């Protein structure tokens, strides 16, 4: 019986592990990214982006040392909320940068509403409704959303490439819905048709049935798949003898996919896409950013858009903190007031926020080309300046277009 008592005591002791004490001279910032599952590579590059911003400040902000605490999710909304809770409630961060993917962003926005004293800055998640409908007053997105990223692509595919009928293969969650919405908004308006859409679950390994179901008479296939999913689809499409040209979603032709090995290279060359970055951007700011990013271990030849988005949001957080002298003792009120009006020059041009705290920034139309050394990169075709979340359409009209989803929009 005494042994049982000992056991019970040990168990209880385990449950009341001491809370860690932190020195006052550090600024704690939580970074929430995906280090598990299909999007691991993406999350790791996001982390590199965030650390590039921290390094730019030499690890100090307003005279205090920056302490980064990492949280990991597996791209599911539940795991993102759990990781965020740990960072906020256990580690006590007052500023949190993240998460990575669409549905996670929606979940974190909901969580943010329950923690009004904590300031949330988006990572790279890009679902439209994270900020468009029912936003959280303490959630900021200095990176643009998935529909904004598509600015210019629909017109380019219809007008320049002459694609009239396009089939869609995309992952089945809020971010690809947003991307498809952005693409189709222009493409359908220009007169194009989308006869078939295939929505596949994240982590799909076998695409044979999807490939077989693509109609014969389409001019091109619009692919919005991320990470391992994109690689799997492209490899299998190539093996199946697919000949239709591709149009890429922003993360489908990202460095996280372009750097993977195999025959997908041949399939991807010439694929037009659009997004918040262009690998061949000639601006000196971009080149300086690429050099700074490359100092991170394991870096890609060019930062992916995840690195870019985490960099932008982390930099915004640090600029905000610097402005207010790291004083978040008022529950972060001044920090949020500062962030709301913050405008700064990024490696990809000016960024500012709208009333819903969503970014207005430049978008880049690109095409995949092969360099002499065999690596792939995105060649800049055109810059769409200062795209806002409603894609230039008046807000009321834009909201009437409805929530993004599997069936919205539609132009068969």
């Amino acid at each position: 019986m005494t042994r049982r008592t000992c056991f019970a005591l040990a168990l209880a002791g385990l449950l009341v592990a001491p809370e860690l004490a932190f020195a006052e001279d550090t600024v704690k910032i939580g970074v929430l990214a995906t280090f598990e599952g299909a999007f691991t590579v993406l999350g790791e590059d996001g982390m590199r982006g965030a650390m590039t911003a921290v390094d730019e400040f030499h690890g100090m902000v307003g005279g205090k040392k920056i302490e980064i605490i990492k949280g990991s999710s597996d791209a599911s909304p539940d795991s993102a909320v759990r990781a965020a809770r740990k960072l906020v409630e256990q580690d006590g961060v007052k500023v949190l940068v993240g998460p990575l993917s669409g549905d996670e962003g929606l979940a974190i926005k909901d969580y943010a509403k329950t923690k009004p004293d904590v300031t949330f800055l988006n990572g790279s998640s890009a679902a439209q409704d994270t900020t468009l409908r029912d936003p959280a007053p303490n959630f900021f997105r200095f990176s643009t959303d998935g529909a904004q990223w598509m600015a210019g692509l629909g017109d380019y595919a219809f007008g320049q490439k002459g694609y009239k009928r396009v089939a869609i293969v995309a992952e089945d969650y809020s971010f690809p819905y947003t991307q498809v919405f952005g693409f189709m908004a222009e493409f359908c308006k220009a007169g194009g048709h989308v006869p078939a859409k295939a929505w596949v679950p994240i982590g799909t390994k076998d695409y044979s049935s999807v490939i077989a179901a693509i109609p014969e008479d389409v001019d091109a296939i619009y692919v919005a798949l991320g990470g391992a999913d994109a690689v799997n689809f492209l490899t299998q499409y190539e093996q199946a003898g697919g000949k239709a040209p591709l149009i890429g979603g922003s993360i489908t032709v990202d460095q996280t996919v372009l750097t993977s090995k195999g025959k997908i290279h041949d399939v991807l060359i010439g694929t037009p896409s659009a997004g918040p970055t262009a690998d061949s951007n000639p601006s000196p700011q971009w080149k300086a950013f690429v050099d700074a990013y490359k100092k991170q271990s394991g870096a890609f030849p060019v930062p992916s858009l995840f690195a870019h988005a985490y960099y932008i949001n982390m930099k915004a957080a640090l600029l905000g903190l610097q402005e207010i002298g790291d004083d978040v003792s008022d529950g972060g009120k001044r920090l949020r007031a500062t962030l709301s009006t913050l405008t700064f020059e990024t490696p990809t041009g000016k960024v500012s926020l709208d009333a819903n705290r969503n970014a207005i920034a430049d978008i880049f139309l690109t095409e995949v080309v092969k360099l002499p050394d065999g690596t792939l990169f995105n060649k800049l075709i055109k810059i769409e300046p200062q795209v806002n979340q409603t894609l230039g359409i008046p807000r009321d009209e834009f909201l009437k277009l409805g929530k993004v989803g599997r069936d919205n929009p539609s132009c068969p």
Partner: protein
Amino acid sequence: MSGLLDAVRPRGDVALLERVGVGHIVLGALLLVYPAIASEFFLIQIAAYSLIWGMVALSLMMLAGYGGMVSMAPISIAGIAGYTVAIFGLNHTGVHGFGWPFWILVPFAVLFAALVSALIGMISNRTEGIYTIMITLAIATGFFYFTQQNYALFNGHSGFAGIDAPKFWDINWRDPMPFYYLCLGCAALSYAAVLYASRSAYGLTLQAVRDNARRMRALGYDVTRHKVLAYFYAGLIAGLAGVLLVWFNGRISPGTINVSAAINVLVIAVIGGIRHPIGPFVGAVVVVLIQTFAIDIVGAERYNTLIGLIFLVIVFVSPDGVLGLWEKVKLRTP
């Protein structure tokens, strides 16, 4: 084994103290005063979360430990109860949400989950050992993909958000302390029920079925009915845990019930030990602590490796999990 030994002990006249056991009383008292010393995070994210996972794993422990049926589906059963709460209760996703009051909703969800569990029991009844694992894993995987791709009923990958725990008696049951006691109450009830059932005539018969089904059949017992009933009871526990889980997260999506979650339940049960109902709870505490804090110890890139290694070490040192380790220590110290 210990369950059997406990059961044959005469229990007619022994005092209540003896019957409940001093260990239980001390543990219960500690758990009751735990909120006084724990931070909010440790109260909810560690303790309440462990109790919920412990209940899901208890459902598996009951099937595997007493019935010899290793099911991979307890998390799916919990998910069914959770989705039932989301669909028939209130959510702010804008899909379904019929707004049933909780006192109809919760019993309905738990009972429905238990019935589905019994159905899984019937399906897997003709299998044994590794084949039971395979068929229940297939069911769990199938259910995961079904929820992920079905938008009309389950709202696909996004699932349901904004599910609130009820408020009654002027208490918001999602507030940290009430929620902890709610989880503790449910867990204690499930634990006591399993312990009691294991010593009852039904429980003893089930254990005999586990040890030799053919002999029990020859003796005239309805083996199938015993097994399906075990699935039903296990479903009640998993279903209750599912309701708590959806209140805990405030949301449910396919990520809650995916294959890694199903494996997680098995890992918890194995780490804790499946020979006594306390095992799953011990395992849940260990796993939740590792999952929460491993990232601080080894960094973001390798923490899954650490979780795997700890699992490996525990199983290597003691095939019966932490519980077996405890018994070893007990044997050595006179």
